[in-house]
């Protein structure tokens, strides 16, 4: 059974103006699927649908074989810790009024009592916090700082640490590197790659940046105007039978 399965997903915000049409794909455990497409192609809406922040018009999204879209928020809540995300803008994904420790430990404080982790020791909150900072290669001194005292890259590392803190099954990475400079992008991608191996994570990596996508993903889907127009294994990226739109993206990549 795949970890995530999308069948014929349709979504529109206004009648007659579909944002997503007929999206089908599966994502297996410990796999990274990349979705590439230009701004406004529906990537972020897709991420919001998978994260159960939007209702679908049609079709279904199965998470570990369970369709969540007809459940109430209360029923979905137990699944949320398995279904984490890192968002594009590190500045706005941390509450500026809260210390890093409070933002980072939010999932643990919410679910801590119910979870058993295999890779992290979570005897105490402090113990887990230090291990998480260690995992994303940050000094534990930052825990008592406020977000405005950290750089964009550091903030994004905190977001990643928060997303992996309860060892989720799937992490949706919605443009996690897009607002960072090139060097920071590289180090974040390297970190994500390392964490996937270390913690047996699965990623759905959404980006407009084909270079970032192919650095991490085995399977790549190309989205255009709310549809998946091309899908292939990473090794076939430069093959001749690629969709013209993919070839166009590849040519930009050079």
């Amino acid at each position: 059974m795949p970890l995530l399965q999308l069948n014929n997903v349709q979504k529109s915000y206004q009648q007659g103006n579909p944002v997503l049409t007929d999206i089908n794909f599966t994502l297996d455990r410990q796999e990274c699927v990349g979705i590439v497409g230009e701004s406004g192609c529906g990537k972020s809406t897709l991420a919001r649908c998978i994260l159960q922040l939007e209702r679908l018009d049609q079709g279904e999204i199965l998470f570990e074989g369970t369709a969540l879209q007809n459940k109430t928020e209360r029923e979905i809540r137990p699944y949320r810790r398995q279904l984490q995300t890192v968002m594009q803008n590190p500045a706005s994904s941390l509450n500026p009024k809260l210390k890093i420790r409070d933002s980072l430990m939010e999932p643990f404080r919410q679910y801590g009592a119910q979870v058993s982790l295999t890779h992290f020791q979570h005897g105490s909150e402090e113990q887990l916090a230090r291990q998480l900072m260690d995992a994303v290669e940050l000094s534990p001194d930052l825990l008592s700082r406020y977000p405005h005292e950290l750089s964009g890259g550091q903030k994004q590392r905190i977001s990643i640490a928060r997303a992996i803190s309860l060892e989720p099954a799937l992490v949706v990475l919605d443009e996690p590197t897009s607002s960072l400079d090139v060097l920071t992008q590289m180090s974040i991608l390297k970190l994500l790659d390392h964490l996937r191996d270390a913690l047996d994570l699965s990623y759905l990596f959404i980006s407009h940046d084909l270079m970032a996508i192919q650095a991490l993903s085995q399977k790549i889907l190309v989205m255009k105007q709310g549809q998946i127009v091309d899908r292939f294994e990473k090794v076939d990226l430069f093959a001749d039978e690629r969709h013209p739109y993919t070839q166009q993206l590849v040519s930009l990549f050079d």
Partner: protein
Amino acid sequence: MKSGLTVNKTRATKVFLSAFLILIATITVYAFLILKHDPSFVDLNERLLPMSWQHPFGTDHLGRDMLTRILLGFQLTVGYGFVALLLAVAIGVPMGVIAGFKGGLVDRLLMRVADAFLAFPDTVVAIVLSGLLGAGIENLLFAIILVKWVNYARLARSTVVAERQKDYITMAKINGLSEWRIMWKHLFPHLIGHILVLASLDLGKIILLISSLSYIGLGAQPPAPEWGAMLNEARPYFQTVPALMIYPGLAIVTVVLFSNLLGDYLRDKFDVKKEVAE
């Protein structure tokens, strides 16, 4: 140069604020110990006396001790102002947070009510309401709360509307927090500074409102030693014994000045630099 001036100004404000807080604490705690006189004890043989050891601020037209009345007036005017303010905040802030967070019909309904109140100046609404309900300090307080909660509702709402779109709210939802917990844990810290600043500035305005309505006879009724009412009682003696108006007047000025300085001080202290730095 500039920084030196700012430092001095802040220090002066701090000194004034601390001195005033100590004064308030002393008066509240010791009022009954230091006051030797009954505030409404009438002695027509001792009317309109000048300063003396017996009556440090003299006596009024009915022979009542002025110092006693001013100090008890402090408890009355500032105390009632404080109560009105607390209730206005307690009603306005939750209303605004809910309106801003929920949006939709709730929001539109609440904000139209608020707009209706805002269409008239505070003083006019307060005068009309306390006129309709009848003179008396309780009705005046009710009128003030009704006028003032709107400001807090609007302030809370606009802050919440600005914040609720941010990613960290979505993250909190993904992390399984309920709407109430999100409001409490994530939105409340954004409100507290703004609310404190507005409230401390409002305290002065409310005290002015209580005093001015009592002055025209709609608030506290004689013989209550409310400062506005005292000003009104002292009117006939304005030319012969101006001290009767000067003491309550000075008391009002001091408290309003304190409220404004406190507001300025808090505004600097809760400066939104943290967000600007992003």
